[in-house]
């Protein structure tokens, strides 16, 4: 009997840490996603000078739990002429792919599920784009006109923006010289500059491509509310819908994490090489203590006793977390915790800034029409991205082979893609003003 379980025991002994982290991702991540959604609603409300969901508990801090329960209990409807197998498969494919790619991301030097992947960053990208197959298949399988249009638009968008985004990633990989996620961050530490300062054009292109990839506004033609009602997931109800939503949100976090790792120094503290910025290590605990103090201040103002009690609980949690973050700074013997704990803090802070930008854009700018989306992708983004890869390559050559000063070389070379972008924009404007044919093409058959 025991012999039969030997391989299982061996497996658990060898892989318990990875296994545990995987389980944590599976269990905790849906909760994180729910709160990301809540915070996004709060940000949207703030932009409209409202206050978002309010009733019952303060600021609806327990709302995601209620929504999750509602989605879980809702009846399941499969459209009558849907392709059952693929309809069932599509959301699962998206979710599995998205969560797998989360597993390979390093949230800190110690917080990573899949440690030893030489091509880690490629693995994350591959799994991220594999999830998109779920969107296309789901859109097609539910056999509904809106969804077909949504899926088709999504595919066209994916094809055009994946290329630009891939080339942008390439520019950062050129500078780092490795595909391993940790090695990329370590390369940024060694070179003393985040790659956003060496390859800023690459970062901007990836920003655009990542907004396109995560189906956020300007590129949210899949789910633009007035037309294909809810894009690729209009026929999905209840639990299936929540799977689709989970995958979408996970994808958003994945692209934010890729951008953070490649361009924003991953888990590195700002100025991590400069000794006189050591005081930044005190920042995480101080920020969290301030959050706790804010909770205590608001606790007195809640109208109902239960609400102020809840605020006190939140404040207590904040103070405890702050205490944990203060440990490595306060005690020398606990210094070994510093990179892990604070690394995770800085990483999540950077990802959070990205997510805030995504929510911010949603209310700030209108969306592209389909024709504009294609033209921006193919006529401007991809040529500029190719020029950028060449420019970064030449800059690296100038630095290492010709012995130029690095900042001078990169500064000069980064000028070229900018010039190309300016030229292309000018050309494009002239052409749009010149011929009426392009204007007719702007209102295309997909109606943007």
């Amino acid at each position, binding site marked *: 009997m025991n012999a039969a379980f030997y391989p299982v025991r061996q497996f658990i002994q060898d892989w318990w840490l990875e296994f545990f982290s995987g389980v944590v991702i599976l269990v905790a991540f849906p909760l994180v996603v729910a709160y990301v959604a809540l915070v996004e609603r709060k940000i949207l409300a703030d932009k409209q000078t409202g206050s978002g969901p309010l009733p019952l508990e303060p600021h609806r801090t327990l709302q995601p739990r209620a929504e999750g329960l509602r989605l879980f209990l809702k009846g399941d409807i499969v459209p009558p002429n849907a392709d059952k197998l693929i309809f069932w498969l599509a959301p699962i494919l998206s979710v599995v792919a998205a969560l797998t790619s989360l597993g390979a991301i390093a949230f800190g030097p110690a917080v990573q599920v899949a440690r030893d992947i030489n091509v880690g960053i490629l*693995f994350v990208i591959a799994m991220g*784009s594999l999830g*998109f197959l779920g969107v296309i*298949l789901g859109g097609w399988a539910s056999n509904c006109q809106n969804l077909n249009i949504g899926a088709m638009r999504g*595919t066209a968008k994916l094809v055009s923006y994946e290329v630009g985004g891939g080339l942008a990633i390439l520019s950062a990989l050129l500078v780092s010289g490795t595909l391993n996620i940790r090695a990329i961050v370590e390369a940024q530490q060694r070179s003393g500059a985040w790659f956003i300062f060496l390859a800023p054009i690459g970062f901007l292109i990836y920003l655009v491509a990542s907004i396109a990839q995560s189906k956020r506004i300007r590129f949210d033609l899949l789910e633009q509310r007035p037309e294909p009602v809810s894009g690729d997931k209009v026929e999905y109800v209840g639990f299936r819908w929540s799977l689709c939503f989970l995958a979408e949100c996970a994808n958003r976090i994945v692209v934010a994490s890729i951008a953070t790792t490649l361009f924003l120094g991953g888990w590195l503290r700002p100025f991590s090489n400069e000794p006189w910025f050591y005081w930044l290590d005190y920042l995480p605990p101080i920020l969290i203590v301030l959050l706790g103090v804010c909770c205590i201040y608001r606790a007195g103002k809640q109208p109902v006793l239960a609400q102020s009690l809840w605020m006190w609980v939140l404040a207590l949690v904040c103070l405890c977390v702050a205490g944990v973050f203060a440990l490595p700074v306060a005690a020398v013997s606990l210094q070994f915790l510093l990179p892990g704990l604070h690394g995770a803090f800085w990483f999540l802070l950077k990802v959070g800034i990205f997510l805030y930008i995504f929510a911010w854009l949603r209310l700030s700018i209108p969306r592209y029409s389909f024709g504009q989306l294609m033209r921006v992708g193919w006529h401007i983004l991809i040529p500029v991205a190719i020029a950028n890869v060449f420019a970064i390559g030449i800059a690296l050559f100038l630095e290492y082979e010709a012995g130029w000063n690095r900042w001078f070389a990169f500064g000069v070379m980064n000028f070229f893609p900018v010039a190309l972008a300016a030229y292309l924009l000018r050309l494009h404007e002239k052409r749009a003003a010149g011929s009426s044919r392009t204007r007719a093409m702007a209102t295309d058959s997909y109606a943007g």
Partner: protein
Amino acid sequence: MLDSVLFYTFGGVAVLSAALMITRRDPLHSAVFLITTLLATGEIFLQLRADFLFVAQIILYACGIMVLFLFVIMLVRVDAAVPQMRFRVQKLGALAVVFALGFEVLVILFSADKLPGEGLFVQEIAAAGKLPPNSEALARSLFTTYSLPFEMAGVLLLVAIVGAVVMAKSRNRMDES
């Protein structure tokens, strides 16, 4: 033990879904089974510790090319019946090709050491628990030993792209006139 369980599972899945891929009537189902085959093959690459090949398989085939396939299937709305009728005529030819290919594979497998050159290339088994840095090795061999075939493949692809663009353009002009 675990390795062989994984190998036979994924190998079985690959073969089974390849068979299903060519027998389904719905082109979309075929596409889904093709994706399954590609993913299962990718896992076998991973077991051979070729992690770069695994990721390239997923990015290029399972994502890039399959997305294009699905796009075409959706746009064209391939009717299931028509292509099948066309293929039935070529049954004998197809069988002949299958046998020829099978024979070829068998010859290569059983007479590997008698072939010109170095025969079948068998790499040393990497240490368990640690992947060899094979993206670097691949890049080195592509840009030094095999740089001519690599460049030729690149030029061929470029020619194909230019040809496709030219064909699409001329079709457009015909539509207008």
